[in-house]
């Protein structure tokens, strides 16, 4: 519950502060969002399964964002940036889908 409130507070904070993102970091923003979404839905599912773990959640969020950003960075340097971005989005997208499906099954029994 408190995590959800913190999430909402973060959104409000971001809107209020409206920080300017350095140009160098802008390409990583969308992929970081996808990685964060994966961590969030994983956490929600774990919560519903009754096995939520704070440490696991934080570490999965940080590592997801870092690895996703690193892969995009590497792809940019190798000249296959868009392809690797697609790879990251597909893998994380599959996981998000699976977790959302599990959440849905648990909430609606369907």
């Amino acid at each position, binding site marked *: 519950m408190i995590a959800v409130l913190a999430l909402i507070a973060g959104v409000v904070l*971001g809107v209020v502060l409206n920080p300017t993102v350095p140009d160098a970091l802008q390409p990583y923003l969308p992929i970081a969002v996808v990685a964060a979404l994966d961590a969030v839905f994983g956490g929600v599912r774990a919560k519903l399964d009754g096995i939520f773990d704070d440490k696991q959640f934080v570490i999965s969020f940080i590592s997801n964002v870092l690895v996703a950003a690193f892969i995009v960075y590497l792809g940019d340097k190798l000249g296959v940036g868009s392809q690797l971005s697609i790879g990251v989005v597909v893998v994380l997208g599959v996981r998000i889908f699976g977790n959302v499906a599990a959440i849905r099954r648990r909430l609606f029994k369907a």
Partner: protein
Amino acid sequence: MSDRGTGPVREERGPEPAPAAPRQWQTDMLSDLFRYPLDAGYADAAAARRKHGPLPAGTRRVRRIVTVVACLIIGVLFSVAYLQVVERAPGRATARAGLIRDIQQRQEHTDALARRAEALQAEVFELREEALADSSLGQLREVEAAAGMRKVTGDGVVVTMADGPNAAGERLAQVLDVDLQLVTNALWASGAEAISVNGQRLTAATPIRAAGSAIVVGNAHVISPYEVAAIGPPDMADRFNETETASVYRAYADDKQYEMRFDVDERDDLELPAAVMPRLRYATVPQPSPSGSPSPSTSPSGGGK
């Protein structure tokens, strides 16, 4: 976790596997990914809690705070990413608006310069008429009117041509520079004494040409609809209507494939502006000759042209 994978490295596991056992990476990673979207760490942590009992309250509180901070960061990330996307969209619109403003400014500048050129030309006429004798003045006026260097008024015809409704995709429906050339030539042949296209007076040396997808008359861009105004004798309209060119374009206007607009109207009291004075190539300012009397000088090569 239940037994995973169909990979070659099969692991013998019971229905409730010992969660503490080290996980193995298996080759069938993709099907694994589809089947277990949740990080395996959650199950491991839960199993560890079952085995060793809950963590001390202090550690739990610290970890909870870290989670809250992480959620805060995620929230900020979401809103920042959203704001970035929203911010970038109007950037394109402003660039477009800036370009349009630039074009309008340049157009106004061009118009102002054209007005200034016209005013200066009128001034030149005035000064010259003051300087010249009456007999040569009338002759000069006639020659100028014929050459397009003087504003003329009179009765004549206006030929209106416009692109067809599907000109954007169908090149045949567009009015091309050739069409304007043919129509103006037919008008000259029908006895026109002065012609202008969309207010651009034609001289003997005014080109009508295509520049990219636009048509340029002299130095000015003209756009559809094109109004070719011609001053000439009363029978000019009839003569023009009988020409091959007019009948061809009338057929184009009726053709479903082109649907080009082509109207010929007789109009009274047309006023055609003077053409912008072209740069003089051969005439030069007369130098006072040794005898003292200024004589008009034209270079020998240009005299015959």
